[in-house]
């Protein structure tokens, strides 16, 4: 199962709002914990190690400045 980086969210704006809202009135420490729990919950739902490894690779490379070899979806 390849990681799907094409649009896949049924209601993207609602999701984004909910994600930000998750952190409402949380301390930084609580926010960090909520983020980590969210990652763990979603990772378990995906399950497939190759897919997860792909997502982990992309996230790390985006932070470190990966060579732009595979085209990322253009930002609007």
């Amino acid at each position, binding site marked *: 199962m390849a990681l799907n980086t094409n649009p896949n969210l049924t209601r993207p704006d609602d999701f984004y709002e909910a994600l930000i809202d998750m952190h409402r009135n949380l301390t930084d420490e609580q926010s960090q*914990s909520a983020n980590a729990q969210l*990652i763990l919950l979603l990772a378990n739902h995906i399950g497939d190690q190759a897919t997860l490894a792909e997502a982990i690779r992309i996230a790390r490379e985006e932070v470190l400045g990966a060579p732009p070899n595979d085209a990322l979806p253009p930002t609007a």
Partner: protein
Amino acid sequence: MAIDYQTLRFEYRRHADQETGAQTPFAQVHPVVVVGAGPVGLSAAIDLAQRGVSVVLVDDDDGLSTGSRAICFSKRSLDIFDRLGCAEAMVEKGVRWHVGKVFLKDELLYSFDLLPESGHRRPAFINLQQYYVEGFLIERAQRLPNLQIRWKNKVVGIEQRDKTPDEQASVALTIETPDGEYVLRARYVVAADGSRSAMRRLLDLESKGRTFKDRFLIADIKMEADFPPERWFWFDPPFHPNQSVLLHRQPDNVWRIDFQLGWNVDPVLEKTPERVISRVRALLGPDAKFEIEWVSVYTFSCSRMDSFRHGNVLFAGDAAHGVSPFGARGANGGLQDADNVAWKLAMVLAGRAPDSLLDTYAREREYAADENILNSTRSTDFITPKTPVSRVFRDAVLTLARRHPFARRLVNSGRLSVPAVLYRSTLNTPDRDPFEGEMTPGASCVDAPVACDGTDDWLLAHIGGSFNVLLFTAADRISPDEQAAIERVRSRGVPVDIVVVALRETSDSGARLTADAAAMGGHVLRDMQGLAAQRYDGKPGTMYLVRPDQHVCARWRHARPDDLEAALNRALGVDGTA
């Protein structure tokens, strides 16, 4: 009266080897010298002696383990001790356990069962102080006339001698004794002299790896308590906040408690009785009555030598590799080293296999050590998160684990020792036929209940003295094809014992089958409960070739006449592919 193994001392005795003096190069060459009379060295020495190899075991001390040290002995270790003839005493004395519980604060997160199925002679684990294990091994060793233990014999020098036209390659050890030094020579040396191995240092070798910035206090306390015989592990308990604690029961009402201390503590101060007593009281309550048996402070580290073989010296146990203790992979891993090296040395010394078979000892056990180190490192990263973000994820896992089952699988308080499956060993013959189950080439054989001559018995009790052919059959005879394959491998000149497993559906009385097996020096076991067939995916005609260390090296649905012989050659490293 019970023997106090902790205070037992063994007498130094002068040996004839010492009369020739330290200078002579012509001392007797022993087949094998084992250095270090800990669980690994003793097991290797007993195994070799049982296989007919004369062994000298030297130790720089004259007593057994100080403190309980290794306390968890796995089922595989007990299977090995069974083969060495001393498991019964250990199981009788030891505390059997198979359930582990993990707590967060004072709440039970989950529990696990390490041996959920029945039909095994030995339990998943026993807890037994290392001095008992060593004591029982020594009692076994003392009954072997070709095994000589020399106490107060300290290795202070080593010289590897290459093969010459007149002599085989050998090792000359300079041994320091109360009577001065002498030279002890051997074809091969097994170095099992522990994590601070003198052998390793004398050869200028290292065990390299990582040390984790954390300290743990081990306290063995003696008390009457009614905790069940289970492994209890707390993350952040109220009685020891922000750290972890492990509680384990040992025989003689001794309890092992590990307190995580963190890095910024004074290890000397933490060992003082006042400190230890207050930590234990925090766990047990202010009125608890107990005595302190033994205390130690240690640091986690994981390391191994690049190669377990250097010339004719073979490193085993903690000398070769070190792991952090949560997982019981130190002593149990080391015992599997002993299990692996002994039969190979015996084969090489008997001229039945090339010296290169010993290279496979190094490769197989380096692979196993890597697996143990990987598991141990992962546990350590969970118990002792190294970075703030690692701590965030660890705590997130623990938080989720209270209500969400998936997260319990991520909680890592130690992944307990299981034998390495030597999947990629060059000694394995890859499967030609499809098989289900765990008994793949490279796996150590699992046990199953069987009947032998009408008496309840265990499968593992019948394999491991030599190579074994395990033939599953539902017929009343051994077929001509099966006989041909077996006869051919037996004619090879290497002892191969035949074990016929009569499947449950066999209706025949078995008289002819027994006679057929006996004609090939074998015997018949009956799989009354069908568990041997289930665990080995044994169908009529299924044949396994099993190594003397009870590891599967080949299997077939229907072996061709030359299959067994080819697989035996491969398992001895004589077909050029090893």
